[in-house]
């Protein structure tokens, strides 16, 4: 009788436990450091701050599991926010501008997906190009000027809540739940993992992998556009460099959350916990007065430590 190889312990369970411990340690440490940290006001603050990052982290996680990546997310976020603001200032009703903004996001997804799906260029290469390109467009569309002066109603929307929970955070949480169900229980999820694991085998099973990847990029663009709407409502102003560094936090959440940069492995629950780790860390460091520069260093160290998990197995 031939035997199967050693059955691996679920590594995803381990990484989820690890993150829960990390979150707990952070909560205890920061609440000792600052009496303000655990106040309701601050917790609401954290939830509002991580909402946009979280909404982008969802399609980013899906793209990475499927074996690709969108490096242009921060530029897309900025561009969509500017486009949204300009449309509103141009007199388009808020809801119509919001719908149009999501279409703008979809269009960017079509553009990015084209290179990956039709020309077979790796996402990491082509989207670095569009990252620069779209950022350039951010400067051009309003000649480098910030977009602001929105109606009071819109700004109120930015701080709207249901039973004290920010709307943006609710939307993000719902999207995470939807994504978790989608990845675990549907055809869509099977395809995402299959392509990320072995694109050739998946294609040999009659699945149109290129078309599917294109679809993922469009979804990605639309969700980034949605995030940009919440971001603009919260900030009340969009500058051409808006969104810069958001990609770092998004990628950090996803990677700390145990999703392999090589594709095919990881789950959305991990990304959600990763998001909490990053969100609490950022907020806590801000409250105890650590400068943004040092925050980068701490974040970098954390990322490298998580990266160690993916070190090549000696074989």
């Amino acid at each position, binding site marked *: 009788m*031939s035997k199967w*190889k050693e059955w691996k312990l679920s590594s995803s369970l381990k990484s989820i436990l690890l993150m829960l411990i990390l979150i707990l340690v952070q909560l205890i440490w920061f609440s000792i450091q600052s009496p303000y940290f655990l106040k309701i006001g601050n917790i609401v603050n954290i939830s509002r701050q991580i909402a946009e990052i979280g909404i982008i982290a969802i399609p980013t996680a899906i793209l990475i599991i499927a074996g690709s990546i969108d490096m242009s997310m921060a530029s897309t976020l900025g561009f969509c926010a500017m486009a949204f603001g300009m449309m509103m200032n141009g007199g388009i009703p808020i809801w119509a501008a919001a719908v149009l903004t999501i279409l703008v996001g979809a269009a960017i997804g079509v553009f990015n997906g084209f290179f990956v799906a039709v020309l077979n260029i790796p996402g990491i290469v082509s989207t670095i190009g569009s990252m620069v390109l779209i950022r350039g467009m951010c400067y051009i569309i309003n000649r480098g000027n910030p977009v602001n002066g929105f109606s009071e109603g819109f700004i109120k929307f930015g701080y709207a809540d249901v039973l004290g929970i920010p709307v943006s955070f609710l939307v993000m949480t719902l999207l995470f739940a939807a994504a978790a169900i989608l990845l675990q229980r549907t055809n869509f999820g099977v395809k995402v993992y299959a392509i990320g694991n072995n694109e050739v085998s998946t294609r040999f099973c009659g699945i149109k992998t290129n078309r599917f990847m294109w679809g993922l990029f469009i979804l990605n663009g639309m969700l980034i556009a949605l995030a940009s709407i919440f971001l603009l409502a919260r900030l009340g102003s969009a500058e051409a460099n808006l969104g810069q560094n958001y990609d770092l936090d998004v990628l950090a959440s996803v990677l700390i959350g145990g999703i392999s940069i090589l594709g095919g492995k990881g789950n959305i629950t991990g990304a959600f916990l990763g998001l909490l780790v990053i969100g609490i860390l950022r907020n806590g460091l801000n409250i105890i007065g650590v400068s943004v520069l040092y925050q980068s260093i701490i974040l970098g160290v954390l990322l490298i430590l998580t990266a160690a998990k993916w070190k090549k197995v000696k074989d």
Partner: protein
Amino acid sequence: MNEKPILQIRQVEKRFPGNYVLRKIDLDVYPGEVLGLIGENGAGKSTLMKIITGVYSLDGGEIIFEGQKVSFQNTKEALASGIAIIHQEFNLFQNLSVAENIFLDRDGYHDKGGRVDWKKTRQEARRILKELGAEFDVDTQVSEIGVREQQLIEIAKAISSNAKVIIMDEPSAALPQNEVGHLFDVIRLLKERGCSIIYVSHRMKEIEEICDRVAVLRNGTNVGTMQLANTNMHEIITLMCGREITDYYPHVQLEPGDVALQVEGLTNQYVKNVSFRVHKKEILGIYGLAGSGSVQLAECIFGLNRFREGKIVTVKGTAEKHTPEEAMSLGIAYVPPDRRREGIIKELSVEKNLILPQLRRYSKAGFLTQKKIKSRTIEYMKQLNILAVNSRMLLDNLSGGNQQKVVLARWLDVQPDVLILNEPTRGVDIGAKVEIYALIDKLAQQGLSIVMISSEIPEVIGMCDRVIVMNKGRISGTFASSELNQEVLLNTASVAQGKEG
């Protein structure tokens, strides 16, 4: 043998969390011999080789090399001491030259600053390759030379560091059948130089031809080491499987039914004007050497490759769009030759590997019908004797033979009329092989048409009712099973063709 063994393995044990992989293995290797090492998948062959070369540490016992106890930290250390391993997949840098690959990072071929001594590197490379009878230039880039030449480079790497024991893991797996003979010439040459070879292989014919002695592993124990002269293949295989295998090729030819697949004048850059028919209940073999176009032909039929001219017709219609989806709807299924790259998805469960071509059938409004999937998977696991803890087990944790059965189950579940099997038993151990042959025979009896592409001559002769031989993209001969023998196949597959080449 009166000589002292050069390599002694004494009571070696290895545990992975949970179970023993090797139990008290004893094995001696004598200078200048070729020792065959066989065993089914999961018997512990590769673990043992990894322990010898320092990839794994051992949990018990000792390894004695040239009279001294050794414990290498990695393969580089092992190589420096004189034990080399040549893997099934070569460790070569495709974009470096032959000479660079042989002496890369070797002491004595660069100075302290890391500057390479090019003259010495080239000269030595040339000398060694000449000894091995190689004809290619040492400045050629590796990506430009063939598999056999690449294997020679691996061997050159080993002997250039004075390896006294060379472990070859499935060395013929990557080679076209007609080049295995060249490999054996090189092995004989190495023997003359006093080098010992550990020849790990599934292929009994090769073991019989080249080995002096053979060691059989089963479930992590050495169940017997014997002189090949004193035994026969039947005995060895029985020992390896732990049971007697009487009937390799159970296939009985049936009266063929109606035409199930008709291919007419298929032409693209790889295949030229290929026409054939397959009937119900028939097993049609396609035999060809590497580069004959048989793989591309199969990919054309399954819609993975485009073709300029020609027609593919089944009972269900004519191919128009040439996509795998359409091929499936025409009743065609395809089991590709490279299981790891084209077949399985190793990080997905047995269940999900099974349903992949038919996601729509196994879902309602996009949601997977979990119960149906599970019960169907378990059904196939029983039917094909797939050994897995449960239906959620990842494919990566299954042995090669069981992985192949999952791929077969996947395509049987599509309920095709025509099943194209491309190298269905490559890298599969004998036990699983025989099971697969029995399954193929059963399927033909149930009325399926089977196209079996294979480069293993015994399998082609043993299983097929009719065989098409391909050469340079064309059909160079068609034979009924009664006309078949090894010579006919090889000759037809390698005849030089007219002016076009």
